[in-house]
């Protein structure tokens, strides 16, 4: 049985601008750019009524659009597609709860937070905590540790 996990997750806008990229496998920067370019093109070309899965090279791509953002995950061909769709949904829920009705701009201006939230939910490509409450609690605790800033610049 091969590895079963996420290989990467990409968030991009309808114009193809990459808003978040999380890679769970080691790749060179050149390779990452190539994959991103090609995959973004492929997904943007899909029509609305098509199914949420597509075969791309040897991988399976699971994607879903939320408002102006495409959430795109790459999994092994034999991995569970439906649970991956729900991983995407859970991540969106987390972002939504944290930012209060999240929109693309939140992710642009608070990109580092988007990565932190993702790390609390997924690690090494696998779901580590599937209770929404627990993930949000962990993030809030981290936020409480932030000191007051002393010199605005």
């Amino acid at each position, binding site marked *: *049985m*091969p*590895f*079963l996990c996420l*290989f990467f997750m990409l968030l991009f806008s309808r114009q193809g601008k*990459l808003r978040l990229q999380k890679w*769970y*496998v*080691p*790749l060179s920067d050149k*390779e990452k750019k*190539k994959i991103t370019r090609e995959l973004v093109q492929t997904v943007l070309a899909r029509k609305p*009524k*098509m*199914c*949420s*899965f*597509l*075969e791309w*090279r*040897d991988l399976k791509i699971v994607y879903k659009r939320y408002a102006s953002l495409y959430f795109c995950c790459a999994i092994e*061909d*034999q991995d*569970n*597609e*439906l*649970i991956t769709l*729900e991983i995407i949904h*859970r991540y969106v829920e987390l972002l939504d709860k*944290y930012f209060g009705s999240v929109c693309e*701009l939140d992710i*642009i*201006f*608070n*990109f*580092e*937070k988007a990565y*932190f939230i993702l*790390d609390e939910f997924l*690690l*090494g*490509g*696998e*779901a*580590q*905590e*599937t*209770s*929404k409450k*627990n993930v949000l609690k962990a993030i809030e605790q*981290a*936020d409480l*540790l*932030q*000191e007051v*800033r*002393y*010199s*605005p*610049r």
Partner: protein
Amino acid sequence: MPAVSKGDGMRGLAVFISDIRNCKSKEAEIKRINKELANIRSKFKGDKALDGYSKKKYVCKLLFIFLLGHDIDFGHMEAVNLLSSNKYTEKQIGYLFISVLVNSNSDLIRLINNGIKNDLASRNPTFMNLALHCIANVGSREMAEAFASEIPRVLVARDTMDSVKQSAALCLLRLNRTSPDLVPMGEWTARVVHLLNDQHLGVVTAATSLITTLAQKNPDDFKTSVSLAVARLSRIVTSASIDLQDYTYYFVAAPWLSVKLLRLLQCYPPPEDAALRSRLTECLETILNKAQEPPKSKKVQHSNAKNAVLFEAIALIIHHDSEPTLLVRACNQLGQFLQHRETNLRYLALESMCTLASSEFSHEAVKTHMETVINALKTERDVSVRQRAVDLLYAMCDRSNAKQIVAEMLSYLETADYSIREEIVLKVAILAEKYAVDYTWYVDTILNLIRIAGDYVSEEVWYRVIQIVINRDDVQGYAAKTVFEALQAPACHENLVKVGGYILGEFGNLIAGDSRSSPLVQFNLLHSKFHLCSVPTRALLLSAYIKFINLFPEVKATIQDVLRSDSQLRNADVELQQRAVEYLRLSCIASTDILATVLEEMPPFPERESSILAKLKKKKGPGKLPDMDDSRRSVNGSTDSTHSFTDVLNLNSAPSSGANLLIDVFSESSAPPAATDVSEENFPRFVCKNNGVIYENQLLQIGLKSEYRQNLGRMYVFYGNKTSTQFLSFSSSVSSSDLNVHSKAVDPVIEGGAQMQQILNIECVSDFSDAPVLNIQFRYGGALQNIAVKLPVMLNKFFQPTEMMSQDFFQRWKQLGAPQQEVQKIFKAKHPMDTEVAKAKVKRHKSLCRDSVSQRLCELLSEQF
């Protein structure tokens, strides 16, 4: 309204991001970025030491610039500084930077690892988690070396917090994927299994993922997890939705954990213990039952979660392949999904059913859905879904429905996407050959393939049809007639001309009696296509022409005129010119008898495995993403190289179920491996030497290199794949009655043209007479190969010279007086011995002897001659 950052909100960062967004052009953006980079560079180099907040802000800006797609070559030191800070937010940014911009500078790595070590030892769970996240995100070999033995301890320590346990488990999982050799098994493995019983479901989830990965490497170590997993799954599946509280997702109980537990169970065969097996069966039945219940919520998340568990349960049922009722139920459930409103479910059902089709218990049940699948092929709008339908038709094909399925696939081919045509062509060719009862149908099918999708008909396909026609007398006439008719079409594909040219060249005589297909008509027909064809086709046609000259003397003159023409004899292409010249000459000087002998009908081809199947597996099977850092295997096939992406995705190490499906489809035709003879033809050569080739056949060469010391021997066995196709499921074992032989496991795949090495450690514990036997098994082109070779390990390999004084020697020699201690064997030499040469050899040997005893022996010997 741009949301201002929560918490400490680095305003400078927000302003910078706004600036970038307001840039009207790419040039403006680059200009703004360069300005900022210069600013940051100067701040970093500046005399004033930066405070933590500023450092954090600048590092974050650099990160943003990098993620936009620009190269960043500085900032690592500052990031490393940040992660050693005591302030959490600074640490966070520091870690994020170095996980995204991975740097291979060894000093930096040392510093980073130091920071991580400190955080791991800090006993502060938030800091520990950050450190673990970083290791899991980067997962480099250096980190594995530094931490792979520490993390298991953190994982199973009693005082570790739950959140830290989760991070540690998945961190270890990541390290095991990238550097499995560095993760030591130990007594912690038993404690990890025990985590399956933990109260905290998050811990259980993480532990399940970890165990699933580790169990693939060492299944025995984690066998005990099966019963715990079944128990846990059972509790989840039968729980009321309020029981699990936080872990209930849209009214579905712990769907992620359920899926992971089901996946863990797929690492093992069905439980042997009857009670456990029945509990699991109950569990699976409950899941299947739930699918029939009305949904608790209209939201798609509810049905996705529920069905995710259902599909995984079906995957487990298929994997076990042991409960017919479950298999049939699964098939029926999937059958329902085939007509569901949601495209996703139809797609998944088609995909899942493919695997069900190869199980003997459910094959018939799958076939009942053939009409639905054919309908899907015709009506589905999404090409991915249509492709799944094609795959399923291929999988469910058998003698009873082959004709219909092939016809449907052919009609689909007419409008299919170009990207998938070649695969469909290969599949149709395979099915047509496999299930042909009447080979005229086979010939028609292949010719149809060429007509519909000629560009995608690879060489293997049309070679095969020719091989079959040559080998089967009963279809030759039909083939000639059909090909002749097909060639009449005004625009026919070049592959058809190739096939037609060859077949008419061989069997045109079978239809020459009819005036409509007289020799001259045939020739004119072929020649009318000549100028439209590429060089290889023309070469083939020229060969057909000389065959015509032999078959039909009445057209000899006409053809000779053609050959004689300048465009042939002076053709720019060497091959064409040579053929024209030689064929012309041959036709002039050879008598009819000689010509007939030279151009005799092609003999039947030897029966061999279809190369089409190999080609299909290559296409369908594990491919590689382009431009990946390919860690090339060394000549000896050692896999010590650090794992690159290709290795992580290297499905080569275990054949994907897709490839297995294809092998299974053909398994009934491959004969069960016969008891193999043990090869020992090269065995005697190895009495006096330790290196050389011990076995060779058309596919495989086995070479040896051995060394011996006292009672231990080491043998390097080199397996060379002489073909251009992979060997799959390669396994080798050594059987020996008297010796202890330890062998390291080998890779199950040997690439075409590659060599693989295996080390055998041999221990001689007492005298022995039987040599060990090396048993090899592998799959080549779908057929199972079994080879057994006697390994040249003889008693004399373990002999060691010992020094002794001549008196001691003769004393011992005289002690060997008892009758059974003396053996004399007179044998005839295979080759004549030149006495003079032998004498000289012995004399030369004598001069090499240092002591008088040996010298005396040599003298005695030489006197015998």
